[in-house]
């Protein structure tokens, strides 16, 4: 096999693929955020003319500031206020982009978004990386416990208690400094904080007072205890270079505070301060099919997105796997090294690290990818490293007499591969490929971290509104179960069909 492969120039194929890839990357690249103030006002002009859309990053799992309704539309105080401020500033198009709270500042730095509007506290630490608007709402941390809890009344009582906090928020840092004896339970989303107290996984929640009160207003079962812990203020976050946009928003905010538009919005979302501090639990069934049926449309959209992601990354994975597999079989050492390095690096590091590096890291090198492109690329690259080994193993397992017989008839090594070796190898690949694509399907839920509204993220936003974690996760689990079983079925059917000659 060694001698026979030598004459075929796999490196040409590999090189072509690499050049193609570089081309895509270069196209996807946009200029890194500039610090030139002239470009800032140029951007504002483009936004006002409607040529550009204002990209607003938000984690819509934080009622009443930002959350998602049954039809998948974002709503809340921040959403309304940003729309009003943009309109007052003459900005025509506004687009809200879903992302985990912790990703908002990196996304601003990477020029993935123009504004962060997600109930962000103004802090000196954050202000090093991004700029803040003037205060648009006074916040501050409050402490919340179950309605029957009588042991926690003050900050001191939190010593040794489990306290639920949302990862990446001010609460984490503040508790570490002011009540280091509290055991922090760090959860991803806002609703998981309150749920963990209701489910007994935590004794208390420390979070923004408006959010806690909104939960009590909606769901009940919790009460606020003690005094307001801190006195921070909420601000909107901007890229350091976007001073013109920030100034325009500040001016509009001042106007709205004077003309009554601002007061109307606070009344709409926060209601009457006096009645909001406690409330009895509202009756809530364990399984609520309505949480699914009411959100059929966004769930369907999420499902379609998930299928698109799986389909595209599966094709990419096969392509990377074929290239990698043949690279590893190449007679030419440098090409073999590339194949070996690819497998060892990609298979040897966590998928989530690769995904974040592609989406949040590459922009620092001037390569900015759409979330969907980044997600599919990361999944394809990751899965392709496993497919590489599957391809290599399957091709090596084909009897070398097959290649010799083909070459002795005068067939080229390419023709022998195409007609004889690869078809036989493909049959052997099918069972491990089926396994790999089942893995890929399950990993696709992780691309929700780069703001792709696929099935899992849609589920999370439904939970943030309905608090029906059990119902929604069972449903989503079932959908994945069906998809992975269909893949398994296709693989085994294909295998039976192709195995006629065995």
């Amino acid at each position, binding site marked *: 096999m060694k001698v026979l492969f030598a004459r075929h120039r796999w490196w040409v194929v590999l090189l072509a693929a690499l050049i193609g890839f570089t081309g895509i990357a270069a196209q996807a690249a946009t200029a890194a955020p500039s610090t030139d103030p002239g470009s800032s006002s140029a951007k504002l002009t483009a936004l006002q003319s409607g040529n550009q859309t204002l990209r607003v990053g938000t984690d819509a799992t934080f009622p009443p500031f930002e959350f998602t309704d049954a039809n998948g539309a974002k709503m809340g105080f921040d959403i309304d206020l940003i729309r009003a401020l943009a309109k007052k500033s003459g900005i025509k198009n506004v687009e809200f982009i879903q992302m985990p709270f912790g990703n908002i500042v990196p996304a601003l730095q990477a020029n993935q978004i123009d504004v962060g509007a997600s109930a962000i506290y103004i802090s000196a630490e954050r202000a090093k990386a991004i700029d803040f608007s003037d205060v648009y709402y006074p916040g501050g941390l409050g402490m919340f416990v179950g309605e029957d809890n009588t042991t926690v009344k003050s900050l001191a009582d939190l010593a040794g208690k489990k306290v639920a906090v949302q990862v990446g928020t001010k609460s984490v840092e503040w508790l570490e400094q002011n009540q280091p004896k509290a055991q922090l339970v760090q959860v991803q989303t806002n609703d998981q904080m309150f749920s963990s107290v209701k489910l007994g996984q935590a004794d208390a929640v420390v979070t923004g007072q408006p959010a806690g009160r909104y939960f009590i207003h909606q769901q009940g079962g919790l009460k606020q205890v003690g005094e307001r812990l801190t006195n921070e203020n909420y601000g909107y976050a901007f890229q350091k270079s976007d001073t013109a946009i920030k100034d325009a928003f500040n001016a509009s905010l001042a106007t709205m505070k004077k003309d009554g538009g601002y007061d109307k919005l606070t009344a709409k979302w926060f209601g009457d301060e006096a009645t909001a501090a406690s409330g009895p639990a509202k009756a809530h069934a364990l399984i609520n099919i309505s949480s699914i049926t009411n959100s059929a449309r966004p769930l369907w959209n999420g499902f379609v997105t998930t299928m698109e992601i799986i389909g595209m990354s599966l094709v990419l994975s096969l392509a990377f796997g074929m290239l990698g597999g043949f690279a590893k079989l190449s007679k030419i050492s440098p090409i073999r090294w590339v194949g070996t390095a690819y497998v060892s690096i990609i298979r040897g590091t966590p998928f989530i690290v690769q995904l974040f590096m592609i989406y949040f890291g590459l922009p620092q090198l001037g390569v900015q990818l759409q979330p969907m492109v980044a997600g599919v690329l990361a999944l394809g690259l990751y899965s392709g490293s496993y497919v590489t080994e599957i391809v290599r193993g399957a091709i090596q397992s084909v009897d070398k007499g097959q290649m010799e017989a083909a070459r002795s008839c005068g*067939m080229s090594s390419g023709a022998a591969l195409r007609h004889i070796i690869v078809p036989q190898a493909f049959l052997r690949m099918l069972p491990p490929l089926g396994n790999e694509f089942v893995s890929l399907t399950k990993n696709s839920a992780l691309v929700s971290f780069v703001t792709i509204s696929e099935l899992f993220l849609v589920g999370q936003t439904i939970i943030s509104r309905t608090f029906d974690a059990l119902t929604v996760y069972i449903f989503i689990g079932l959908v994945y179960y069906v998809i992975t079983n269909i893949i398994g079925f296709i693989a085994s059917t294909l295998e039976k069909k192709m195995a006629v000659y065995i």
Partner: protein
Amino acid sequence: MALLTTKAITKKFGTLDVLKGIDFTIEPGEVVAVIGPSGGGKSTFLRCLNLLERPTSGHVLFDDEDLLAPNVNLDRLRSRMGMVFQQFNLFHNLTALRNVVLPQINVLGKTKAEAEAHAMELLEKVGMTHRANAYPSQLSGGQKQRVAIARAVAMSPKLMLFDEPTSALDPEVVKDVLGVMTDLARQGMTMIVVTHEMGFARKVADRVVFIDGGVIAADMPPEEFFGEDNTNPRVREFLDKVL
């Protein structure tokens, strides 16, 4: 004019000298039986003729072309040299018919209809038309080898190389395969046959080449080789063992 000539070919596998300088010639229409003890270099010699193994040094001239010259079109030259393997090496993923058809289409550029007509003719000659649509896994060893011979002959080669074609077969089907090879020889095919079948060498071959220790130790007509007058001690020792 010789069809194929080798000049001083050697082959090393690592530090092992398998061939130590072989000069060999075959004329069109000749049938040469290559015999000798195991490990003597017979198969390596045969595989050097179509460059499945690349000789370490020396020359292989076939049809007036030097196979080891740079820029030589090896695929074209190989298509004029059919090869039959001990382990048959039929393409597992293709039926008997497709095995014979694919190289004709892929290498000779025949149409599917031409290739299939020619393939069916040859399968008829080797008595395999009734199994034309069977996959190799459904055929017996003797049947596989007959299809493999048809596949090689279908390329209309000038020379056929046989690498121990009957060694992996059950004794009762060896005769079928040797019969097919004898027919080919009678039709004037030039053949080099590495074999342990002394009967075939004696009756069908024009010359017997005895390879031992990486060199040609004897090259003569079969009647001389197998005759009482052959006093070569290595040949005698070998013949005493196998006959």
